[in-house]
């Protein structure tokens, strides 16, 4: 294992449960991401050698699925839903105001590592459109000003 970090044991357990077969790659990556928050190079190498899979294949799979992150996320995350119902009700403006205020694009993290702004295809909370999720809490029927206010408070970014 890459280090003494106990979390590697959880990753190993997932692979063991699947008998270290190559097709458990995606399941294993889910475990890595749940345990570490993202997939870094040592993790990819570890998974590759444990499952006997080529490095390039592991990297190809990791970058195919948008759920997997190769870089650590910010301390706080704000996910703006861009599902159709939210879009029709102004989600693009929500996202735009966030991007403008924090000077980052969707998928990026602020320079100080405080905030990551992400988008979701659809949270399935169409009844609450437009919706956003701030650190796991869903905010429904949210407006730009309200969203900026709450994100700023959470991040302590109020300037």
């Amino acid at each position, binding site marked *: 294992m890459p280090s003494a970090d106990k979390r590697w044991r959880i990753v190993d357990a997932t692979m063991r449960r699947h008998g270290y077969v190559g097709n458990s790659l995606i399941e294993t990556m889910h475990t890595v991401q749940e345990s570490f928050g993202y997939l870094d190079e040592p993790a990819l190498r570890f998974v590759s050698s444990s499952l006997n899979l080529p490095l390039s294949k592991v990297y190809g799979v990791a970058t195919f699925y948008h*759920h997997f992150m190769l870089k650590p996320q910010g301390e706080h995350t704000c996910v703006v839903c861009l599902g159709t119902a939210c879009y029709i009700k102004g989600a693009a403006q929500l996202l735009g105001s966030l991007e403008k205020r924090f000077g980052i694009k969707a998928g990026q993290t602020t320079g100080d590592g405080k905030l990551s702004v992400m988008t979701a295809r659809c949270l399935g909370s169409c009844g609450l459109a437009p919706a956003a999720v701030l650190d796991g809490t869903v905010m429904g029927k949210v407006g730009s000003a309200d969203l900026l206010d709450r994100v700023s408070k959470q991040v302590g970014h109020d300037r």
Partner: protein
Amino acid sequence: MTAEELETIAQEEREACGRKKHHLHVCMAAGCLSSCSDRVKDALEAQVKAAGLEEHCQVKPVGCMGLCAAGPLVSVADQNVMYKEVTPDDAADIVGALKTQQPVQRLHCRMDVPFFARQKKIVLENCGVIDPERIEEYIAAGGYTALHQALTSMNTAEVIAEVSRSGLRGRGGAGYPTGLKWSMVAKAGGATKYVICNADEGDPGAFMDRSVLESDPHRVLEGMAIAAYAVGASRGYIYVRAEYPLAVKRLKIAIRQAEKQGLLGHNIFGTPLSFEIDIRLGAGAYVCGEETALIASIEGERGQPRPRPPFPAESGLWGAPTLINNVETFANIPPIIRQGGQWYAAIGTEKSKGTKTFALAGKVNNTGLIEVPMGITLREIIYDMGGGIPDGKKFKAVQTGGPSGGCIPEQFLDMPVDYDSLVKVGSIMGSGGMIIMDETSSMVDVARYFMEFCMTESCGKCVPCRVGTVQMHDLLTKIIDRKATVRDLALLEELCDMVRNTSLCGLGQNAPNAVLSTLRYFRNEYDELLVEDDAEPALADAGAKENAS
């Protein structure tokens, strides 16, 4: 497990339920949960306790009640009363009203309105009624009797015949006859076969499958087990989006409970059928809703589709014959077996039988989940059940079928909703997302929104989809920016035709639909944005500015 044991569990559960006088149901599906219905449930329990009603009143977590926009929802099942937008502070009043039988007026949500009255619940029959995390409640509601019936009193051909008789068509979008699909897999040779449940509900604005999985997961397991028996499979997978953590959690609980009761695993009901189900998590790739991409993903590969034929029914997961149906399709199976294909076929239209769930969203008053008989008109859904367009705005179009579907204008509002009618007007049934747009929506912008979706979700394997969607998206942006000419629009139309006819899988083949349908009904909106051929001075100006800076 035997039939008697199943009946015993059901009896005990019904008796336990009958001992309580009042039944407070709190919606704990994702929609209401995100409005903190868990805190409402806690508050109700505390109030029940405070009122000393613990012996008489049950507070039960249940699945989706449908009217998601008005959540959190609480229902008093014994009094047929529903409350909307309930906060923890309302708990005392709700519990207080149990005695007086006078509903709390400010929270009261009428149930005799078309939104509820016009529904025909088959797939959703247990949603909002049973506790999704208790198998006993599912059994008490008649659960797993269909599986017992199929395994002990029908042969596999009879099961397939019953499904064929029902006229059920795939609820994932394409509408392929389910019975035919089952018989193809049943006929395919090979000792190993698989049953896969496609729960990769990726259409934005669609949350029917999620609601079923969160509210009544056992129904899907039972449907899969019946399918496994019919086609001769011993292993099943549920491929579910990682974005649905609650659905995944409830599925895991349901599988564990079913295994414990011997309803999954070896020799189910003492018959030779052995069937195990595993969950596989998606990882954020819409294209994995496509059968062959989904299979690649379960195999641990990049979710790229491969050309068909061969179809998964002949050569699917690890090369073995594989049956893939979506959540709603499997959820329809137990009632079809219990009540007969004939009964199911009597609902709906000539070519589209049964019911369909829809997720109603966008510019409509009642947002939420509904189940209606096929053949109902769009007008009934949008105006009667959905309560029309908010803020006195005018209806413009309804979008069905997600990114693969199209926009349907006002003149077709009285058209029956069925597979073939929707295709005729340039859209598709899809999985059941229904987004209503009012006069403020620009249809060119909507087309670009869906093209952006298809472009980002393209797997990149085939050229038309990988590059064509990007080119179409850029042309749409050029149109919206008022920089496009008649020539650009002509090129856009040519690309639509080419990408539709040459792409490898359904994602690319259907990617142009949003453009084509909006061009068909709202061409004037495109024309209005076009500029004269030679009016491109911005080119030089932009260059000058860039150079100067």
